[in-house]
């Protein structure tokens, strides 16, 4: 079911792009990632909008006053929080839902990239059988897995002075960090759990994705880097990129929210 609805169509679109651009799998991954991001842009925009609203809520004087007032009464605090959400027209899960929808697409994209690379007879067999009949698969296979200095089916290393330097993994970690920082909603509320979580994610995600890039096929790294850069571009398009956030010691300003009346 998952394969038929997501992975198989993704694989075929990826192969179609590969064929149309004359057989460069690296460019095909980049274009396919852009295509997926363009299609899911409305979701992303909705997420950014909700997320901004939520951050403003966290920073608002109203919420900070309520937190102080009901510091010792968690039940009452939660009740007041929900009341304020309602009053300001905020849905607590609205910023989360688009992410939930995007997760399967990320899985599908990754699986289709890995499938198309087919680095063993069994994998080639699977690929051969999922390619739609209108594709002359024997003319397409094997895909040209060379892109710039990389073999997209292998983890990447640049050899200098006898040492293999994982250049792509470094770029993945760096772009992930920059994306996390410049797109992270600014927060002045010291009790903002979301902001704390965002800060943690900004540290862990570059390490995690960097580890993936270090270990897995470099085709995945191309996807990560493209995704990170497009992510920044999408935020920039919506005017939500905060470049000052990468400056050490940067402090955001406090917000006052307008009530939903």
């Amino acid at each position, binding site marked *: 079911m998952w394969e038929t609805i997501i992975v198989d169509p993704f694989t075929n679109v990826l192969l179609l792009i590969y064929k149309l651009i004359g057989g460069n799998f690296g460019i095909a991954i980049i274009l396919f990632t852009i295509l997926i991001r363009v299609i899911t842009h409305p979701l992303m925009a909705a997420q950014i909008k909700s997320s901004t609203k939520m951050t403003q809520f966290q920073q608002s004087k109203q919420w900070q006053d309520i937190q102080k007032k009901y510091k010792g009464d968690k039940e009452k605090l939660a009740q007041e929080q929900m009341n304020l959400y309602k009053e300001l027209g905020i849905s607590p899960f609205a910023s989360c839902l688009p992410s939930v929808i995007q*997760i399967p697409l990320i899985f599908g994209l*990754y699986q289709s990239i890995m499938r198309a690379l087919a680095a063993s*007879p069994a994998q080639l067999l699977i690929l*051969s059988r999922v390619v739609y009949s209108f594709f002359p698969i024997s003319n397409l296979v094997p895909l040209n897995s060379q892109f710039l200095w990389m073999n997209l089916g292998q983890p990447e290393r640049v050899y200098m002075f006898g040492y293999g330097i994982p250049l792509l993994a470094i770029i993945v970690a760096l772009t992930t960090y920059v994306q996390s920082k410049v797109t992270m909603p600014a927060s002045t509320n010291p009790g903002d759990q979301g902001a704390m979580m965002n800060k943690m994610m900004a540290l862990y995600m570059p390490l995690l994705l960097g580890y993936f890039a270090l270990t897995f096929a470099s085709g995945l790294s191309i996807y990560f880097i493209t995704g990170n850069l497009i992510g920044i571009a999408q935020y920039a398009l919506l005017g939500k990129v905060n470049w000052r956030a990468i400056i050490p010691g940067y402090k955001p300003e406090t917000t006052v929210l307008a009530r939903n009346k």
Partner: protein
Amino acid sequence: MKTKYLLLIGMALVLVLVLGGCATGLTASSWPGVTADKNNAYVADGPFVYAVNLQTGTEVWRFPAKAATSTPFYATPVLTPDGGQLIVGSFDHKLYSLNPTSGAENWRFEQARDRWIGGVLITADTIYAANADYNLYAISFTGTLKWVTPFTADQAIWGAPVTDGTNVYFGTLGRHVYAVNAQTGREVWVQTVNGAILGSPVLGPTNILYVGTYGGELVALNTGNGQILQQQTTSSWIWTGPALDGSNIYTGDANGKVYAFPMSGTGTAWTQQLNGAIFGSPLVMDTTIIVATESGNIYFIDNTGQNIKSVTLTGKIYASPAAAGTLVLVAPTGGDNTLVALDLTGAIKWSYTAK
């Protein structure tokens, strides 16, 4: 708020697990390789290479002693002419020499940069090993590099090379057949065919090299200059090399059709439609052609194309069957057994299941 961020962390963890799982699946997926000497059968199947006693069907040893998911073995193991070493490649880019009696590691060759998909070719003094990193390596029996092809082939090499003593021949996924000098690795000729070459070429008796292609052709080439002498079309992809007897060349395709092409002359000697796609090479034993299919069937076909008998095993069969004296060894995938030994009547003599 807390719930929301816990949900996001949960999703990130799922992402980690799924991506990790996918990547692991990528590195550990293929089908077994089987060979035998007079004492044991050797099966490279996932985390282990197993030695199984040919008389009893019991395990003699396994290598390595403990499973390591990073070292999957699927390449067909090959014995040196004196029977003193078993050479097997791994997806971890290393080529291992094992003691066939004990399973102890003699040495490992670590200079290749990609997977060992197919088996190696071993002559009296050299191991010719083709790697998915587009190179052919000539290695001594002590594991030292003699030479590597001074050029890079156009694509990965999945099939074992063959030699006539003068040249070494191999096919690539990039639809090319190469002949290189057996002493130096220098290119002698290169020829383009109509599809990727996934299996090994086979040498005929009269300076002819046969290759099956993913483009659905069996191609005969002149070993002297690479000139294409004949092309026989099949109904679907050919995944492995053909097999020969004195009169015919046998191959099977992914539509389940087995073909006998006469070595002299053109046309088809006979064809048979079998149940299930054919991914392994046919095996010729005396006057019987043994073909295994994905549906789990093993067919015993008389070399005239008549008198077909079949046996069905549990699981699917992708690997080429191997001969061990009068036994036929088959390694199913996803079935009840790791290795099954049958006689030429199709009777199962023993089966071995790795625990």
